[in-house]
């Protein structure tokens, strides 16, 4: 499954990339797509294969979104964010 994950800080994305590697997921760091958020921080584009991306949630994650047409559909958001 392809998804985009945004974070509260840059290093959260770096740490996620390192830790998600142990699941064999393909993870790439990137600027947050404008159509997903007005934030200009760092996100990851993640291909989790057959795994559910919500199976690995960290404290630094802000939201998880799936590509949907030309935009994104948010499927998870951190509490109070």
């Amino acid at each position, binding site marked *: 499954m392809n998804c985009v994950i945004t974070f509260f800080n840059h290093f959260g994305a770096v740490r996620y990339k390192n830790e998600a590697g142990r699941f064999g997921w393909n993870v790439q760091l990137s*600027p947050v797509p404008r159509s997903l958020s007005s934030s*200009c921080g760092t996100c990851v584009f993640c291909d989790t294969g057959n795994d559910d991306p919500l199976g690995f949630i960290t404290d630094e994650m802000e939201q998880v979104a799936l590509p949907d047409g030309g935009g994104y559909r948010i499927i998870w958001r951190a509490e109070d964010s």
Partner: protein
Amino acid sequence: MNNNSKTGIIIAGLIIGVIASLLVLFGNPANMGFCIACFIRDTAGALGLHQAPPVQYIRPEIIGIILGSFGVALATGEFSPKGGSAPLTRFAIGFCVMVGCLMFLGCPFRMIIRLGGGDLNALLGLAGFALGILCGVFFLNQGYSLKRTYRLAATEGVILPAVAAALFALLLLAPAFIHFTEPDGGPGAKHAAIFISLIAGAVVGILAQRTRLCMAGGLRDVVLFKDFRLISGFAAIFVACLVMNLILTAATAGTYFHMGFAGQAIAHTDGLWNLLGMFTVGFGAILLGGCPLRQLVLAGEGNTDSAMAVLGLLVGAAFCHNFGLASSGEGPTANGKIAVVICIAVLAVIASVNTFGKKE
């Protein structure tokens, strides 16, 4: 406008560059169609926070940027009141960024505008800015974080736009307790008509919100991701300013383009301190997550952490003029040099504590 595209941000940058040059034609100081730092400094003076008569005026461009961003964020559903990410630390960083800006005599936005006017001193500023960003990126990659933000009540996010609107009322009413530079009394006396400035600021605020234009973010994304989208806006502002200044110089009696180091408007030729001033700005901007323009835009979107950074800029400006830290066309002051060194040290401590002091 497809706000994901590089074309969109280039068009926005070109429009902003044209506006910046036209504001000089309409009355703003030379090479200062826009300067977030200088305009916040002028506003601080107008409010009596510092006593430097040449730089006292409530700049409508600042009000316009905040209200433009606020309005477009409301209209597009992106108004999102949030905060709680180390607000006082952000205030302190904003303070340090202003000290750096007033050493160089301009924010990153004005640095580009100065380059577009042929001011080669800004090349030293650009070098320092890039070095500061590299320094900030080092800490980002080591784990720097001011921790997460939290959703807040809508009233929190509306406060700064409301203050901006109140400032505009004060500008229009001009009560006796608001200070204005006397005619021909300095840069504060040079300004475009109020509503032209307000509209120009609002257009820049809207475009910057839609495109996320950020001078520091542009260089940061190149370093981190080899992504040239944000920096293309940066480049477009430079090109538009350069072309407009050449056209205005040819078509009017004024001089809008003058290439060289000496004799530049509201600038000095001390390369080392131009470099160190903008190093401070670049470093601080990465720690804040954006340049002063970006902080204004985020504050307009309801980000109270960015509003704290803006308050830090405001108080920093007042300190710079009350304690002789700000440079002038004559060059930097001894107090200013000491302050810049202290601010670099403060930023290094903030970066280190929030990088190495929080590792789990």
